[in-house]
């Protein structure tokens, strides 16, 4: 019963530590207008707007979609707000895609953003809870113990994280939108950066960014004449599991494994390393690349780090991951997931510029959030499914 759905327009803002040149409406409009221009459509051609962002406390505004409605041309239209923690950028895109796939709308604008510099995200994440002792220090403190568990489980040597940190930052040099541009980055620089949450060093963690991402999704009958060919949605899936429970595998969560099995099943992918040409995967801390390589079935359990070490995930490798520089180079939290989905679409549309993988036909976009418990993924392709 589902209709075909395609990405016909993408837009993103410059991702920077502080975008004080624009307001929040200005920021989301910057991305939205770019996506409309890329799709070759105007505001009137949009049937509905689906917006996502991470916790409202990041900017100190409650349900900001209400005040953003006019800036996004949503007046008189359906406006929908998604929040699924760090995976929100991905799940927002999926809600928009479902509106098209279900035949509800022909053309949907989806937007995700974060303007972290407007407030103190670290504070928002660490709102003191009564009766508890404040021990954590942001997301890194949460994820570092799981990284240690992965290292123990896989026997991965400690330099693997540094390889990812360097690779993604070198990729970011080819992406003008990326927040971090570190031309001098090398393994030594990462190794010498300050240890934040042992075993995680400063340069192995994502930055804090302002930025927005937007896409125009269209049904087969409403593709219009976009600047680049459409990126067809071949599969989409969301999975969630509880934050903590007895016996939970926090290194390779089952929700991630089942989500990718679902999305690959829909897209007919049985040998991901061969069939997927390029992947944009949510890697906010370096070690999550080998961890997700295993979780997503690109490598056998315990073998992901060997793939990273071999250079397979570099731009000239056989399965390039995060050619855009990924979350390690830009992290406007609420938009980070959508940027993965959007970059995957850019690759199969052939519009990724310097970080384009030649001839990319099938790409994976991935986002995760919460305590590695919320997953959103899609597979997009150059060919009509």
């Amino acid at each position: 019963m589902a209709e075909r759905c395609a990405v016909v327009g993408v837009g993103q803002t410059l991702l920077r530590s502080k975008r004080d040149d624009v307001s929040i409406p200005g920021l989301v409009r910057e991305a939205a207008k770019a996506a409309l221009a890329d799709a070759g459509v105007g505001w009137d051609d949009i049937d509905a707007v689906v917006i996502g962002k991470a916790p409202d406390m990041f900017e100190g505004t409650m349900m900001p979609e209400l005040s953003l409605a006019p800036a996004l041309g949503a007046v008189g239209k359906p406006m929908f707000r998604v929040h699924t923690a760090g995976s929100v950028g991905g799940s927002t895109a999926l809600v928009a895609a479902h509106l098209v796939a279900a035949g509800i709308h022909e053309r949907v604008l989806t937007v995700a953003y974060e303007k972290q510099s407007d407030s103190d995200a670290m504070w928002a994440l660490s709102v003191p809870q009564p009766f508890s002792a404040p021990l954590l220090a942001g997301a890194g403190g949460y994820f570092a113990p799981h990284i240690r568990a992965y290292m123990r489980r896989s026997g991965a040597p400690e330099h693997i994280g540094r390889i990812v940190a360097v690779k993604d930052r070198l990729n970011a040099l080819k992406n003008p939108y990326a927040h971090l541009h570190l031309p001098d980055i090398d393994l030594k620089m990462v190794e010498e950066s300050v240890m934040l949450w042992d075993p995680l060093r400063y340069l192995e963690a994502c930055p804090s960014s302002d930025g927005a991402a937007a896409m125009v999704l269209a049904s087969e009958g409403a593709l219009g004449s976009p600047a680049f060919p459409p990126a067809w949605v071949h599969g989409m899936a969301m999975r969630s599991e509880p934050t903590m429970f007895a016996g939970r595998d926090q290194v390779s969560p089952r929700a991630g494994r089942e989500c990718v099995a679902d999305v690959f099943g829909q897209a007919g992918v049985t040998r991901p390393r061969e069939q997927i040409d390029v992947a944009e995967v949510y890697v906010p801390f370096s070690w999550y690349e080998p961890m997700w390589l295993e979780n997503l079935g690109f490598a056998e359990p315990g073998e992901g780090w060997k793939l990273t070490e071999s250079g397979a995930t570099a731009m000239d490798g056989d399965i390039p991951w995060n050619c855009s520089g990924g979350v390690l180079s830009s992290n406007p939290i609420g938009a980070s997931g959508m940027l993965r989905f959007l970059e995957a679409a850019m690759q199969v549309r052939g519009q990724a510029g310097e970080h384009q993988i030649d001839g990319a036909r099938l790409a994976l976009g991935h986002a995760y959030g919460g305590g590695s418990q919320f997953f959103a993924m899609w597979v997009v392709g150059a060919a009509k499914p």
Partner: protein
Amino acid sequence: MSAPARRPVAVVSFAQARNVRREASRNEVELLMPVVSEVFAAIGASKDDMGFICSGSTDYLVGGPFSFVTALDAVGVWPPRAESHVEMDGAFALYEAWVLMQEGAIDAALVYSFGRSSPGDVTEILALQLDPYVTAPLWPSPVALAALQAQALIDAGEATEEELAEVAARNRSAARANPNAQVVSDASPEELLADEYVVAPLRRHALPPITDGAAAIVLAAGEKAREWRERPAWITGIDHRIETHALGCRDLTRSPSTALAAERAGLFEGPPVDLAEVHAPFAHQELIVRRALELGDAVTVNPSGGALAANPVMSAGLIRIGEAAARIWAAESERAVAHATSGPCLQQNLVCVLDASDGAVVGGGA
């Protein structure tokens, strides 16, 4: 306008927590858990039957980020489930579930929401919904904004203070029959008019109570719906629309977004509804919504007592859908409309048309 045929999806189960001024002992998980188990038990279903789960809530009511994350523990999402969350009223979570079910792969979905207005000062908190640059810094209370709207209505000659009192009296007296209601009263409109103004022209009775609550609904498609409920409440159309945020750019006496959503949901096609559950936190807003929905005098409005009897923010809209569906199950209604609102002065509105027959499934979007 001809809308494409939609897959018949029905509301088949509904449960809510007893609405109270302050839930002092239970946390969100403990508040939701019995509601979720009740919504399943009522139809002999379990979480394992659900192809999708969607919830609606907002962090600012709770006072901490990611409040929906722990709330999920009330369901037991293991093995992992397709699941999503909206920072909106649960009625919009229901909309998302309905959309996914249209694609045909999912036959049943759980929708839930929770909202506790008691932990903080809800009038301060709701001010943070306003434009953060020019309006929120003034910290206008939602009551003051609603009063602006009520005054505009009165000045336009479309309502009187007596009519506001009549709306309040009727809702709170109807609430006598609702075991989950928080505020019930047999006071006459005349008696209510003796109330003091909170913000003129709104007297105490025209305001919603502050409520802690939670609700859950099960949606099912086709045969699954008939298996679980003898007389399912079929969603024949559902749509939502938003207006501009700038109050000065709106005609506050009208709700064009409600009217448009109603039209797109097919409310004005087919036989008229006999029952409406409208989400009007302030008494005068019921008058505005009634007009936008073109409800005649024969329509029973808010037999549950509506948001004037209990207003758990983020759940009150979902509860309207559940209450309307329950009347269809009970054969007290053939065709009903449920309405949910969000934002200051009815900025965003959702309309859901429910029918005892699945023959009239049309609307939504396009």
